[in-house]
């Protein structure tokens, strides 16, 4: 089975949008080696690692979702604003799940911006959905 830690070649167009081509992918997979380099120029090759590939796959799968008739997994942070209705550092017990989720969010947010350089803050909600979908499908990886 192919190791998923294979980098894919992406072509960054002059407009800054990044897409990887099937030809480039086949070339790299055929060589069976990882690339992680970024070159400058109008047709710079941009390394896209497995995070990008998986994110693209998940976005393709989850993009056309019918929100009005699907159960959509999400994560919600729990804030205790009592007693004075003021946000503050949580005194609650934290678990490794917190650090893992935060790290996963950072890693995938970086990937999202490589894939969609024009992303807006509204897109972050979709990213959370992607991460939650993975977590739920895996039975709660941070249990």
């Amino acid at each position, binding site marked *: 089975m192919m190791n998923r830690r294979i980098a894919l070649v992406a072509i960054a167009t002059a407009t800054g949008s990044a897409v990887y081509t099937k030809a480039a992918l086949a070339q790299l997979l055929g060589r069976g080696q990882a690339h992680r380099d970024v070159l400058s120029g109008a047709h710079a090759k941009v390394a896209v690692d497995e995070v990008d590939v998986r994110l693209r796959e998940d976005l393709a799968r989850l993009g056309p979702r019918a929100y009005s008739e699907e159960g959509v997994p*999400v994560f919600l942070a729990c804030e205790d*604003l009592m007693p004075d209705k003021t*946000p503050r550092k949580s005194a609650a017990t934290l678990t490794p799940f917190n650090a893992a989720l935060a790290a996963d*969010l950072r890693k995938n947010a970086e990937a999202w911006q490589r894939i969609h350089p024009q992303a807006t803050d509204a897109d*972050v*909600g979709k990213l959370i959905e992607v991460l939650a979908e993975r*977590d739920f499908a895996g039975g709660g990886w941070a*249990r």
Partner: protein
Amino acid sequence: MTTNAPVTFGARAAELEKLFATHPVIRAVNFHSTSRSQAEHYDRQLAQYSQSFSSVNEDELDEYLTTGRWLKPKPGLIVSVFEGYRNSFDVLAPLIEKYGFIGWFWVITGFINAPIPEQLTFAEHHDIDMLTHEYPDGRYALTWDELRQLGKKHVIACHTRSHTLLSQLDPAVQREEVVGSQQEFKKNLGHPVRGFVSLTGPAYGENPATDRLIDAAGYEFVFSNFRIQRVRAPGGG
């Protein structure tokens, strides 16, 4: 003159990264209309979740918000069901119960108060999606009697009266949306509801006028896009 620069993707992601790193996190799954035609899909979905997650009631959420401690063996999952569709009762609630979860039914009181012949029109004008028209008698919203039945096993909570953007309303109308809807719950259920969420999910703290109304209505939990906030202790205070 100062201008507010739009929040970028990176800034919003960083904000959430910090939020999730520093606060207890709970899982939720958000349903809206749950048509009969999709029942098998919901069944499989909830069956899968029941292998890994456990139900959450309001007292358990309050404890988790306060301490971050979760006492059940499996992590909690809040099953949220929005708007007050009739198929929440007919289709999803039996499945929620079959798999041992507790549903959090977020109700738009104006929808369920709308006369049956006007419910589709109400939905159309209040951002309530109606992808499937599955009830020949034209009733698409829950009834108060169904809500009372749901309330015996599940959580009933407020999703405003009209499903409109609160920040765009004048104060009197906004009061009706936040406080007036709570009064309707008290009248029809015999008790106030503890949870509140409004359209597009602004958090407590984003709009001081709305916050004051949330306080006046006595809600304890404010749900928003990425947060659950505890804004009142059980029973007041």
